[in-house]
């Protein structure tokens, strides 16, 4: 009796975890969806100011960061395949590369934000209020909120990947029980996907 009870607690349903993760991704998309609505409304109302403000952003750093995230999405996808092939070392290596790429992204972001701060551009700064039009203030406000929230998601994603590395290393995530790693991958793709939308909206559309 005791034994059967124990087995029931060990109940493992990879499909359920994956559905759960997909539903959570929906909620994340809607979270950013609210911001995309705000962005489109203000872009529609202030097309010229948004054009001017976008010229202040550094397209090169933005493009580099886009490439970094795309490559990191590839490495984490590869890590799920190598786990299926029972190559634990390769899996850990690919996850490590993903983490490094995520960190590089954040470092770039740090320098990018830092440069803006040096020019006196941050939400609520005197320089922003006096030297820029209302539309530009809104552009930079949204720039900081949306890229900031995205950076927060990068950090959360990195924590999940750290957790996956730990579990792969211990062997509790393996080719038969891969849901945690697959979910970490799904979440990381989401973070990547949101950036794919943020990059053109802020850096490319003029």
């Amino acid at each position, binding site marked *: 009796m005791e034994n059967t*009870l124990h087995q*029931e607690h060990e109940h493992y*349903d990879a*499909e*359920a975890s994956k*559905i*759960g993760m997909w*539903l*959570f991704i*929906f*909620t*994340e998309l*809607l*979270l*950013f*969806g*609210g*911001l995309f*609505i*705000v962005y489109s*409304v*203000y872009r529609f109302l*202030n097309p010229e100011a948004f054009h001017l403000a976008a010229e202040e952003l550094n397209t090169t750093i933005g493009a580099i960061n886009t490439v970094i995230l795309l490559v990191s999405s590839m490495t984490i996808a590869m890590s799920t395949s190598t786990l299926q092939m029972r190559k634990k070392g390769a899996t850990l290596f690919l996850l490590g590369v993903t983490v490094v790429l995520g960190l590089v992204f954040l470092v770039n972001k740090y320098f990018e934000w830092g440069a803006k701060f040096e020019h006196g551009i*941050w*939400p*609520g700064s005197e320089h922003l*209020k006096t030297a820029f*039009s*209302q*539309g530009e*203030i*809104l552009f930079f*406000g*949204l720039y*900081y*909120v949306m890229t900031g*929230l995205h950076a927060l998601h990068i950090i959360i994603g990195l924590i999940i990947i750290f957790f996956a590395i730990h579990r792969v290393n211990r062997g509790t995530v393996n080719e038969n029980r891969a849901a945690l790693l697959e979910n970490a991958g799904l979440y990381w793709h989401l973070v990547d996907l949101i950036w794919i939308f943020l990059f053109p909206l802020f850096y490319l559309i003029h």
Partner: protein
Amino acid sequence: MNMQSEHLANASNYLTYKGKHRGLLGWILSTDHKRIGLLYLYSILTMFSVGVLLGLAMKLELLAPGKTIMEAQTYNSTFTVHGVIMIFMVVIPGLPAVFGNFLMPIMIGAKDVAFPKLNLLSWWLYVAGVFLVLGALFFGNGAPDTGWTFYAPYSFKTGTNLLPAVFGAFVLGFSSILTGLNFLVTIHRMRCPGLKWTKLPLFVWTLYGTAWIQLLATPVVGITLVLIALERIFGVGVFDPALGGDPILYQHLFWIYSHPAVYIMILPAMGAVSEIIPTFSQKQVFGYKAIIASTMAIAFVGYLVWGHHMFTAGMSGTAQYYFSLLTFIVAIPSAIKVFNWISTMYKGSINVQTPLYWAASFIFVFMVGGLSGLVLGSLATDVHVHDTAFVVAHFHYIVFGGTGFAFMAAIHYWFPKIFGRMYDKGWANAGWLIFFIGFLALYTPMFYLGMMGMPRRYYDYMKEFHGGNILSTFGSWVLATGLIIIIINLVRSAQKGVPAEANPWNGKTLEWTVSSPPSLENFDETPVIAENDGPYNYK
């Protein structure tokens, strides 16, 4: 011998089960869906009591014109905190978190929800949210005074301590999302063999619809509250007209969530009533598929009507027509349900018990609330009654009358299952009658006062409105008396009531096949639903 077997039965039920932790820790660290359901019950009842006290204080203030017991600023904070507590901590989690957690896994023949740890995390987040909001009352420059809607731009101009309240509401929303996610996966993956979608109990169906709304609407208010917080801290500008932002946009984003949230409150209430009425009519529910279809229709159309909160806030005429039309359309599926409930009772063998009293009075107050909603949904009359006591009467009839009455119906229906004991039926009926009379006396005069032009959210009013307000305040005392009787009766019965049978009402859904209270794992062996079995098969 008899003693022995009784002892064994008790040792294995979920209330007396001894796990890794003892005492209080055995509850607040338990991942058992039944214990989590009760944790929610106790925390929600606590917050409900706080909300009721604030409500009574407001009614006492309105007993006479001018200052009665509090200043205007105190009154503003009182209705704000009353609203935040009642909406975010009581009626939104209400039925899903308590009865959904406790009963849904049993009703689908499962041992637990899909993610038990996540379920416990949801409760912890709920508690964290509660403490954050309450923290706003005791620290900083006074309690929030914006109203529960946190309208911009006042929400970032007010000097009161708004940040913790906004952040608390965000955390409560997160808790709600996780509960919805958990329920969706559970209902999809864990139904017992033979339990097809067309055999799901209606309460489970409404939880399913609710879970989708929780999942898809809550993130939008989440980001909106984050923006309000950032506006307050940094001055981002998105809702600040001085920096080019638009406060009306805040209202849109807020109501895109908060109108569907009304259906988070009412759908599970409808589900509970749809369980109770067939049981006490001993008859197959009338139009099972129509109830499911109307549930999903409400969940869907409910997304598209948010603009009706903003008819007077500044909106194009075209948008007003569409929102008004959609508001009338969303009333149709609710009306379908009322016809279903009444038709279920028709020619049934009706067993008049406390839950049926609550369910029947639910139908009455829900209809009054729903029809008065159409007065607000028509453009011409809305201009007249907008922001008056009429609106307050309308949503208390729907939210308190609808969700509150259904909650009471549900607790009196499932009480023997949850606690394994029966309550005193005489006191329960007396409590219902007094509560019902108090409810009518409290809110009905507000319809009249609003029509006469008494605005809401003021601590003062003109002498002409005195008579109606006296009746309303008197009603609040009667309602509170009824509530005290109900709570004392239930608390006392949970400890000293007569032990209940497994199926005291002759219900046909799965929770009545297990012992009262249920064992730790609900079922000794996984139930199987035969081809001709159904949740409401009465002969």
